[in-house]
């Protein structure tokens, strides 16, 4: 492993890392919005809504993410929907993870005691207000640790975008390795860079878990 190799490869890999971060953030945002919508639909008393959400969640969870990416990038253009590889990777990962996010949020919402909703009703609050003021603020605290774990998974799975030609970090590494044959140097660097991104996130999640775990047991919050 030559030091000159490292200085030569690092800028290219960092450029890839930037795209990795962009995909992760984009997919995280999309999966959050879509996941929240799916969770609310699934808990809705309107059967058509809960059935639609349930079916969507199961189908998406039952498909490999890489197949979903291929579908969006290679099949949708045949139906007249053109997306760049970058857009396709954000949409693909965002939709795939919305199913897991929906389950995170649903578990958070369902963990709220019935007594909370009854108390809110007893002071005349309507369903939407109860959701906004009583249920969601508490559900988000419960859902935060699993939400953080999902963010870590999205970060790692953003490497799948390499399979549809996005030059994110893994793809950048592949390209350098193919032209220089410096497999050890390149993939060690790639692995270290992923750890630089994921470990802070994992430590953050652990802190959140300790913090909320304590307050759930009756400590100060």
């Amino acid at each position, binding site marked *: 492993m030559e030091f000159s190799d490292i200085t030569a490869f690092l800028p290219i890999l960092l450029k890839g890392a930037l795209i990795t971060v962009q995909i992760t953030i984009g997919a995280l945002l999309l999966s959050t919005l879509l996941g929240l919508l799916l969770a609310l639909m699934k808990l809705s008393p309107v059967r058509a809504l809960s059935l639609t959400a349930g079916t969507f969640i199961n189908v998406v969870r039952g498909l490999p993410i890489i197949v979903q990416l291929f579908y969006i990038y290679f099949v949708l253009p045949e139906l007249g929907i053109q997306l760049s590889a970058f857009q396709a990777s954000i949409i693909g990962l965002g939709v795939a993870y919305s199913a897991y996010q929906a389950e995170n949020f649903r578990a958070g919402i369902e963990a709220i*005691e019935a*007594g*909370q909703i*009854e*108390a*809110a*009703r*007893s*002071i*005349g*609050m*309507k369903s939407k*207000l109860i959701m906004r*003021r*009583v249920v969601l*603020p*508490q559900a988000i*605290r419960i859902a935060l640790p699993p939400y953080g774990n999902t963010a870590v998974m999205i970060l790692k799975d953003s490497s799948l975008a390499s399979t549809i030609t996005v030059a994110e970090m893994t793809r950048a590494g592949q390209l350098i390795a193919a032209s220089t044959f410096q497999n050890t140097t390149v993939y060690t660097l790639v692995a270290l860079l992923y750890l630089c991104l994921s470990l802070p996130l994992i430590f953050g999640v652990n802190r959140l878990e300790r913090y909320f775990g304590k*307050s759930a047991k*009756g*400590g*100060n*919050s």
Partner: protein
Amino acid sequence: MININAIHKSFGDVEVLKGVSLTVAKGEVVCLIGPSGSGKSTVLRCINGLESYDQGSITINDRQVDVASKDINDLRTQVGMVFQRFNLFPHRTVVENVMEGPIFVKNEPRETAHANAIALLEKVGLGDKVEAYPQQLSGGQQQRVAIARALAMQPEAILFDEPTSALDPELVGDVLTVMRDLANEGMTMVVVTHEMGFAKEVADRVCFLYGGQIVESGDAHTLLTQPSHERTQDFLRRVLNH
């Protein structure tokens, strides 16, 4: 003020209320007593529409209580409720718990709601706990916050569902004192309770429920000291000798 007329209610195949009728006048304190499963909490929950009923009718100031109607939220602002397990909002401070309804349901200005909440918290003896979170308080303190939260809506009546049953014995007194003060101020109250001493002292009327029916009802002192029905006698013997 509250008029319950022959309500029936079933959970699945089990009929928990078999024709309960009860009238509560303005300013009256009525205690519902009876063994667990007798339907007393269900009656209470039907009054403010937390439970629906299958037959009969309930009116509050001549307005029908109907869970499915849009009117129900407005009716609930007139009838407060205090729960066995307090059900305070754990993510909000004590004063925020009390202000929640006035601000978000009655659209009161924040300053007015805050001033009223502070006054109510002082009234229930918690003027020094306004910025605490519920989980930092004892059960008795939490229950008094819950009473302040109900009072903040300026209800015409308050329903109490076993308000002291989840409390350690030494904390029961403070809550009962607050309730006694409310009764003396003329608040209309329906109280499901196992505190026979409180019922005897404060209630205008006591109803004994058994098997989904009001078996006996009458003046508190008479019912609790000289019950005429065999079931009432049996029940009182058990609770007073425990």
